[in-house]
């Protein structure tokens, strides 16, 4: 493989609160290869959104990135000035938010919002004058058409509230894609949507990824979505990555007790009449956590030897797990 498009190493993002220091992301490594779709799964508080908000440089006080490298195409984004980062954000990496209604500006037309993105990041546009305005308009129409909005010419003049939830999500994707980014980070793009609309939006993302050759990070809590759309997956728990590997392998034979618990928690028609086995307890508070396995309080396999820092270990081709109960692959 060529050089990874995104490589995050040892990322630690903390929030200083009155109750104590919340370590929302603690030592996270993520790699995204060119053209791949990486799934990031975890429950609320797992740190999946904060990890990628850190990548985008969107962490504001009281939050701060305490340690780690964020290499995008070999450049450490943490070393960039605010202005340089502004150029990367949107042009090279774009992010869509879960809630399209609050992410879009209610006072501006959809056309204006797409044009803003193009103004800021598209270098191929004519320099000025009516030619530039025409080109921007044409590109905006093209983008709305690309995400499957009917009669895009007329709908450019409309405001976000005039669109349905699924269409707003697609408009946000259109804005994110307007500058042809190399990496799209989609944070729960379909959580607020109904299944039939969810299927449309995810297929749209697949389709555009194939056509533009970009990489996608799909942040979701839905393992079904990951199974059908992602090449690789990382599972996060309480601010750490606990399992990583090719999607089929991770879902087919999960190695971390948390991943197994998550899969066993999904109610399925095939399991009718059998009790589901939920994971007992709840996600720990992330304030001043001791350096030990974060899942041990809920883990059926935990023992006293889990009360120490646990490192990720390789357990197969491209597979890593943060659990001492899983035998490591015999090294060469």
């Amino acid at each position, binding site marked *: 493989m060529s050089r990874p498009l995104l490589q995050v190493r040892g990322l630690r993002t903390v929030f200083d609160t009155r109750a104590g220091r919340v370590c929302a992301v603690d030592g996270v490594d993520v790699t995204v290869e060119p053209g791949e779709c990486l799934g990031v799964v975890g429950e609320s508080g797992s740190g999946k959104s904060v990890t990628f908000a850190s990548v985008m440089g969107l962490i504001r006080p009281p939050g701060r990135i305490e340690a780690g490298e964020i290499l995008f195409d070999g450049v450490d984004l943490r070393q960039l000035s605010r202005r340089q980062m502004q150029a990367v954000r949107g042009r090279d990496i774009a992010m869509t938010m879960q809630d399209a209604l609050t992410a879009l500006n209610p006072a501006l037309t959809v056309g204006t919002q797409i044009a803003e993105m193009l103004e800021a990041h598209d270098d191929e546009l004519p320099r000025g004058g009516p030619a530039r305005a025409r080109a921007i308009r044409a590109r905006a129409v093209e983008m709305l058409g690309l995400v499957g909005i009917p009669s895009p010419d007329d709908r450019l003049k409309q405001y976000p509230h005039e669109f349905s939830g699924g269409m707003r999500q697609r408009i946000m994707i259109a804005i994110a894609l307007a500058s042809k980014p190399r990496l799209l980070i989609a944070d729960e793009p379909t959580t607020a949507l109904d299944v*039939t609309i969810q299927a449309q939006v995810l297929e749209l993302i697949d389709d555009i990824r194939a056509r533009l050759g970009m990489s996608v990070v799909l942040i979701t809590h839905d393992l079904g979505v990951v199974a059908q759309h992602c090449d690789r997956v990382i599972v996060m728990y309480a601010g750490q990555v606990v399992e990583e590997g090719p999607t089929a392998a991770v879902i087919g034979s999960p190695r971390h007790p948390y991943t197994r618990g998550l899969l066993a928690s*999904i109610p399925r028609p095939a399991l009718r009449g059998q009790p589901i086995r939920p994971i007992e307890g709840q996600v720990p508070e992330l304030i001043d956590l001791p350096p030990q396995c974060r899942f041990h309080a809920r883990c059926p396999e935990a023992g006293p030897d889990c009360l120490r820092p646990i490192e990720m270990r390789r357990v197969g081709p491209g597979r890593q797990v943060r659990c001492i109960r899983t035998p490591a692959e015999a090294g060469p």
Partner: protein
Amino acid sequence: MTGALLQVEGLSKTYVGRMSLVGRLLGRRPTAVRAVSDVSLDIERGEILGLIGESGCGKSTLGRAILRLHEPSAGRVTFDGTDVTALSPAAMTAMRRRMQIIFQDPYASLNPRRTVADIVGLPLQLHGLASGRAAQRETVAEMLEKVGLKAGQIDRYPHQFSGGQRQRIGIARALISRPDFVVCDEPVSALDVSIQAQIIQLLQDLKREFALTYLFISHDISVIGYLADRVAVMYLGEIVEQGPVEAVLSRPRHPYTQSLLSAVPKVEATARTDRVRLTGDLPSPLNPPSGCKFHTRCPLAIDICRRSAPHRETVGQGHDAACHRLHEGLSITDGGSAA
């Protein structure tokens, strides 16, 4: 099973918009949304009827109209032999001891300024079920233990609990008056997967312990498929298909049910299944399509679907569906052209 505990016949709920003065002077008709349209269904004693559909299809409104939390516009609801739609407000309040609801949002449905003792104890007071404060506290404490909370948490406020724990408080409040029938309105939709499984398990255990009957409203087909005995599928205020859950999930007959099932991303299938992509969005209920309400998105729609609304027809044991093309044996997964 000993017969229907709850019978719903021709239930409708129409919300009428407010009219401006000018509109009234000009003799315009107010806008009306028919959220639930002529719905009939039976729920047997001891069963779980699952109600699925997408947002805006009217499933929550139906649940609330059954309990008269929203007054039905037409139709009748019979509960254990009593026509509850004919009850006086006072008699209806008394009847709610036996008919309860669990809400979706564990944050919005609990009064933040009341302690758990007050929230869960209120139904006891309303229905005169506790003699004295000490007895009431004791009953509440017992109920808390039954839903997996600690009796020692009785004096806490809702914000001191997590989402899953709050949902347990909502369940305790619904069950403390020992109802026979509970509307579960998306009780697990706002929860994380692992917490969702805990609550589903709890609802199943409590159903057995208290001999409950559930109307379980959800947009999540996996949850319904796991939990329900029978299922009803709603689209734009109407029930388009209903039947035993195995039959409906394995041999769905209505094209809407078929597309809904095929849209669910499944964990098992790593290979992409042949998906039917429904085009377009849900039409506005303000201005519903003519004929069959699904025809604007249906890949099988033909001329008659635009003109006349189909009636529900029996397609199997206890299984019916409303579609003009039921008997042509079509499935939208074969593209709809094969006949």
